[in-house]
């Protein structure tokens, strides 16, 4: 399988060039970290621009509207205009807020989301950190974000913020379980928590096809639970506009608000990327059994495009949820998790174990 161009080749060239230039291993490591960090920040900002534009357009089309279509071609520059507006706004801190906590919370949110992007495989051999507990790392680190939300809500000294933060806490703590169990059901099949191993195990078919019914159920549960985890509609009780003005970020303005927005979009990307990696084969091209001609054509599409395509497919599904379903009440939200998703995902793990033991997963 030879690809015309690849991101892993680029990263290899940069590394060898830096080694020749600096010589010292420590200096190479530090400069690489700086480069990776800058690239990541740039990528995430660009990504959230794209997602912001995509969300508005998708929402508009689903509601028989047009969405932003005036600034720039087809309204693509609207999000730039909005960012400039946010940059010029005053970063107001309320008088009675806990100032330190209030200003710290957005950074905690953004740091958490940036940390979670580390083990994601963006393309073939192109990962920031391929650690051996990748899936576990993602689910562990992503739950730190609830601390950021609670911190933001509580330090604002505002009843709406506090209510939103508390709801968000209840929600994330409950839905974490279903996410964990649906991740485990794929880990049962692969026998490894390392993201690259999980992707490589899908070389002859994605888990959603190879894993039979349990994988499909796990995929649906993962999508539903992760929608709740990132506080998106229909599970957006934490920021329910109609009840709590804006929930935990009511009091934030300017760039601090923009950080919450950025982390929200990056979280959306992360859960979609995780779903794409675990169930839809990550950067693996789509192959059908023995159709070598078809498979060869698929191999010519760069692995990064495969990854982004699958991720954006999942993002589109989550956006489709958001603009179709009405918001759940708090008791309905907890009912859905504890009475339906959790028992079903527990049974599903048992079923998946059966599939793995009988060796049906190929």
């Amino acid at each position, binding site marked *: 399988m030879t690809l015309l161009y690849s991101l892993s080749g680029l990263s290899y060239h940069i590394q060898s060039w830096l080694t020749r230039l600096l010589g010292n291993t420590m200096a190479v490591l530090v400069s690489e970290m700086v480069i990776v960090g800058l690239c990541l920040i740039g990528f995430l900002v660009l990504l959230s621009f794209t997602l912001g534009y995509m969300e508005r357009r*998708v929402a*508009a*089309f689903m*509601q*028989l*509207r047009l969405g932003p279509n005036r600034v720039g071609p087809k309204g693509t520059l609207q999000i730039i205009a909005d960012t400039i507006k946010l940059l010029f706004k005053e970063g107001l801190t309320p008088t009675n807020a806990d100032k330190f906590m209030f200003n710290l919370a957005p950074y905690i949110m953004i740091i958490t989301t940036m940390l979670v992007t580390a083990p994601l495989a963006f393309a073939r051999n192109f990962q920031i950190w391929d650690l051996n507990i990748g899936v576990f790392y993602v689910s562990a680190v992503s739950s730190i974000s609830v601390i950021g939300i609670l911190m933001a809500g509580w330090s604002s000294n505002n009843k709406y913020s506090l209510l939103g933060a508390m709801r968000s806490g209840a929600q994330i703590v409950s839905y974490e379980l279903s996410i964990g169990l649906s991740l485990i059901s794929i880990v049962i099949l692969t026998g490894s928590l390392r993201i690259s191993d999980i992707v490589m195990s899908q070389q002859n078919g994605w888990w959603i096809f190879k894993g039979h019914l349990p994988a499909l159920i796990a995929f649906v549960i993962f999508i539903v639970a992760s929608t709740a985890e990132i506080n998106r509609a229909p599970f957006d009780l934490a920021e329910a506009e109609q009840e709590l003005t804006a929930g935990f970020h009511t009091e934030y303005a300017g760039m601090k608000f923009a950080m919450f927005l950025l982390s929200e979009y990056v979280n959306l990307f992360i859960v979609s990327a995780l779903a794409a990696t675990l169930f839809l084969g990550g950067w693996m091209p789509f192959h059908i059994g023995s159709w070598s001609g078809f498979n060869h054509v698929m191999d010519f599409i760069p692995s990064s495009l495969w990854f982004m395509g699958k991720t954006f497919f999942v993002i589109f599904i989550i956006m*489709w949820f958001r603009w179709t379903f009405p918001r759940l009440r708090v008791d309905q939200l907890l009912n859905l998790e504890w009475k*339906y998703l959790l028992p079903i995902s527990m049974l599903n793990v048992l079923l998946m174990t059966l599939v793995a033991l009988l060796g049906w997963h190929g």
Partner: protein
Amino acid sequence: MFITEYFKTIFRSVKSLLTGMRLTGYYFTHPSKTLTQEYPDNRKELKLADRFRGEVVMPHTEANEHRCTGCQACELACPNGTIKIITKQEILPDGKKKKRLDTMIYNLSMCTFCNLCIVACPSDAITMSQDFEHSVLDRSKLRKILNKPDSKLMEGVE
């Protein structure tokens, strides 16, 4: 039984969610269904709903005839005092005196487009037009006289 009810609930809710997603998916894949009108750009081919109420007008025929008998039902029906009807005495060819419409004053700045005058009119003399671009620089221009100069009552309308 409890367990069958449990699975029935799941089935029903998944079905209803998929029904909703099918509708929004249909809208997403059919951009021609979009209701938004890019107004100043599409002034020529602007599509308005039939029930849209722009302003009260009095249709006249080519012979400059209207259907208003001057009965003042619209003036009484109007909650804001938007309509003012001035009548005159007209002597018919057979020598009888008859009340006829002289001027119908319609004050657009006070109109709430409630349609009550059109409902009240017994002879269908006034209707709502689709014209909505009413902004003017002088308030007095909003005070309109609906009957055209020298217009007459249509034959046969009493």
